[in-house]
């Protein structure tokens, strides 16, 4: 089962106004050797575009596990605003 299909099964209340995930220094991704965020994230939030030299952050898929901030010190990780983000049915 593809991760894209699994994401449809998760309940979210997306904060349209603000991303709770940011990389403040864009250049660090360009120089980053492992780009661990792009494969460690369990819901594929991070995608690196080699051509554009840009890290796309699809924050509305985030399940707030916190793994990305442990593998990368440049990720500015916050909780989504109160009430926003993932809301599990089962958990």
């Amino acid at each position, binding site marked *: 089962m593809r991760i894209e299909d699994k994401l449809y099964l998760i309940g979210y209340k997306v904060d349209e106004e603000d991303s709770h995930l940011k990389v403040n220094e864009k250049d660090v991704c360009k120089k980053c050797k492992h780009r661990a965020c792009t494969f*460690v994230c369990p819901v594929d939030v991070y995608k690196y575009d080699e051509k554009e030299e840009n890290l796309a952050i699809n924050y509305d898929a985030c399940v707030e596990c916190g793994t990305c901030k442990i593998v990368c010190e440049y990720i500015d990780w916050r909780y989504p605003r109160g009430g926003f983000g993932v809301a599990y049915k089962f958990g």
Partner: protein
Amino acid sequence: MKKKDFDVIIVGAGPAGIAAAYKLATAGVKVIVIERGAFPGAKNVMGGIFYRNVLADLIPDFEKTAPLERHIIEQKMWLLSEDSVLGGGLRSEKFNKEPYNCYSVFRAKFDKWFAQKAIEAGALIINETVVKEPIVEDGKVVGIRTDRPDGDLYADVVIAADGINSLFTKALGLRESITPDKVALTVKEVIGLPEKVINDRFGVLNKYEGVTIELTGPFFQGMTTMGFIYTNRTSVSIGLGAIVEDLVHNKANINDMLEKLKAHPAVKPLIHDGETKEYMAHMIPEGGYFAIPKLYSDGFMVCGDAAMLVNAVHREGSNLAIESGKLAADTYLEAKKTGDFSAKKLSAYQKKMKNSFVLKDLKMYRHLPKMMEDKRQLLTKYPQFAIDAAFDIYKIDGVAKIDKIKAIKKRVAKLGYIRMAKDAFDMWRKIR
């Protein structure tokens, strides 16, 4: 005059925070719990096994109303290779008699129920509110800052039960940043299946009896990984967790690993034709005893995952969380008699924890996380050897047993008698 809105503020409505709130509210303490989710449990995940005894102390008849799935009557351990399983385990009718040992549960439902119990006892629970930071005055924690307008709250004591991503312990300098070798990223799928299909596949008679399977072995390619399969009433929970450092080192994606596990020839028949209902991810503290921060400071105590209280060997976490919440509440109740909430007074919490099964168990296994990191062969080479040897013994092919045993002995020699003896000795020495 000293600012004070509540006696105690608890951050996070998981098992630790709610247990503390329940106990305090029952004792007449003015307590508030701040939860960032839409409801208690909305953000909470675990594999799914809940041990009853810590909650029975608090709410003796909890089984009458709590949302429980199945009580576990059989616990299996599987060593997986690419195409085989070598298994063991225990099924006992003693596990099929009340009081039961443990249940499968869904945390989004269970925590919601537990929180309701705390509300009925008199606790106030505020949802949809993020705590931004502790308010510290003269080195003492006096309150919290939330993301609500005018959202500062003050109390005698703040209890942090805000989970693995806790900002408190770090902000207060009680621990360093979490490193990738100290946590496992775990994912899980809840796969819906008819009740009767589950009963038949797992060999139980009805929807109240359940089975657990823990999985590890060379199938996970040298990464420190634990998988699990748990039965619920009308679904099966399947998942796995791997140390984050191993994922980075192997450039591995945990969802890919889960898909591979679901396709294993021994696993696939258990979930065949099921419909995935939910997918979730959560980090589990795996650093063990040495990763636990100091549990208190002036006006402050920390409980549950925020204090890294997980016993990975026995897949225990929520029971340690509840016990820590109870002991933090006890400590507050004692301190309240004197009105002294200093670090010195609250250090009683650390002592209570030390004398409880929580820190005693974690201390016993204190060397294990490092050993698993250093001795990869424990999860790869040795299980692979055991699986291959078992296959040779079971396979009837005209070769005399004595010759098979000779061949197996040769393979042991290749693994190294001395090294194996040393590993066995180290394990014996370090886990006792």
